[in-house]
């Protein structure tokens, strides 16, 4: 691996986390980001599962990218995704019972996450294995970060706890663990990210911000 390659890989990871953050910048996969983020634990666990699936899918797609016929690439991507998700599901059920009980229900839904298919189609199918791996890592980390951030706010405000430990004595703001509060939290965080982008990087803001 040349020196330049390493820099670009680092760039890929950074891109995935900040510039092309799945939830806050690309505004896709919002459903899971609201469904599972009512506690940091859930958010973190699902984020890790997604990180793994994303990385593996990207790598697999990149490996097979020259072999896959373009006409059936989407079904094949889906097959690859569902294969890896099933692996995660079974492994968790066998070896991580406690975690599985918390988020088992959501693991299988990872198949339908737009973000994973999007990265496979947008990036992995056009790039070398190594780059695809790092891109998967980056966007998976970005997703993980987003979920943890959202769930951090929601659990802190909604339950007064973090990772299940009570830390705030005041009456919690229940709405934040309800779906409505999820939307609110995502919206506010997105606004915050946009503000940072506009304030410090001169961006125009993401999601629907086209035109005036």
């Amino acid at each position, binding site marked *: 691996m040349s020196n330049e390659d390493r820099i670009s890989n680092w760039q890929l990871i950074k891109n995935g986390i900040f510039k092309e953050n799945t939830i806050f910048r690309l505004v896709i996969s919002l459903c899971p980001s609201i469904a599972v983020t009512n506690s940091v634990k859930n958010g973190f666990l699902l984020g890790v599962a997604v990180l793994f699936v994303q990385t593996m899918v990207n790598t697999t797609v990149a490996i097979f990218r020259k072999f896959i016929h373009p006409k059936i690439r989407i079904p094949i991507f889906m097959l690859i995704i569902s294969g890896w998700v099933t692996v995660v599901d079974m492994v968790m059920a066998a070896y991580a019972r406690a975690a599985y009980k918390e988020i088992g229900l959501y693991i299988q839904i990872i198949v339908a996450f737009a973000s994973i298919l999007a990265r496979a189609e947008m990036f992995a199918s056009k790039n070398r294995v190594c780059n695809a791996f790092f891109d998967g890592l980056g966007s998976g980390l970005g997703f993980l970060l987003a979920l943890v951030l959202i769930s951090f706010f929601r659990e802190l405000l909604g339950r007064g706890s973090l990772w299940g430990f009570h830390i705030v004595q*005041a009456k919690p*703001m*229940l709405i934040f663990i309800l779906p409505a509060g999820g939307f*609110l939290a995502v919206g506010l965080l997105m606004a915050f990210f946009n503000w940072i982008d506009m304030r410090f990087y001169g961006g125009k803001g993401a999601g629907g911000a086209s035109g005036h």
Partner: protein
Amino acid sequence: MEAIKKQHELVVSVSPHLKSEETTSRIMWTVSLSLLPAFISGAYFFGPRAVITTAICIITALLSERAFQKITNREDTISDGSAFLTGLLLGMNLPATVPFYIPIIGTVVAIVITKQLFGGLGYNIFNPALIGRAFVLITWPRAMTTWMKPDAAFMRFDAISAATPLGILKEEGLAKLLALFGDKLNLYTELLVGHRAGSIGETSVIALLLGAAFLVYKRYISLHIPLSFIGTVAVIAWLFGGKEGLFTGDPLIHIMSGGLMLGAFFMATDYVTCPSVKKGQIVFGIGCGLITMLIRLKGGYPEGVMFAILLMNCFTPLIDRNLRSKVFGFMKKEAK
């Protein structure tokens, strides 16, 4: 001739050169004024706590609006009275006994998130006061559904909790309600006067009607929304409200209890969030009435006015888009 031109600095502007004296701030302040009777009755029945709660709302509303405008470098508009009105309405929609952080957070949500983040006055999709109330109701359901027993002892700070008439009707039925209030006539009188548990500003039907009549007289609100709203509630209460089958319900109880009067006359008619064409306003009112009664009779909450108005707020753009005013001479042309 030259002299005239030199002497006088003339104003040149486009027509029309006459403008009515109505201004946005005058409307807002007048609506606030029309809420005064209901507020006084709330203060009378629920004591100083009611005044303090409402005052907190108003002060928070003014401060948060000013703060937001300062941060975002926008023009200072707190003198237009809309923030004051939002604070007042929110305060009157809360139980008197809520802990003080509830009005503060509710008002901040109402002003900052519901109104200012959407672009300020005129651009909000939802009624700010109602979103503020929905937020705190969902967030602290217990505190928001613990009602104070109305008591005319003016300087009392302690409070005995009591259920609202609608709560009793939902949980224990009409018989229990009648047992509590004596007979039906007495129940009606108490509801009319406002001697019952409920939010600060929603209890006194007479006071609310007084304010509403003033607004109607001043032509600040039209009766399209209130009448279709209340009418729908009455019809559905009569049809399905009774335990003994169709046509046995008591519409009067449903009309005079809960937040219907306050909602129908002062919240559903909020200019920004209701349809602006009369046809659309009737549809809006009927929709509000249907959802209110659906929630009251079938839902988990005893009261549904707030959610009904908020849900219909979502439909306002759709209604406005599809039920436009009839353009002069347009139907004729199409018929030809």
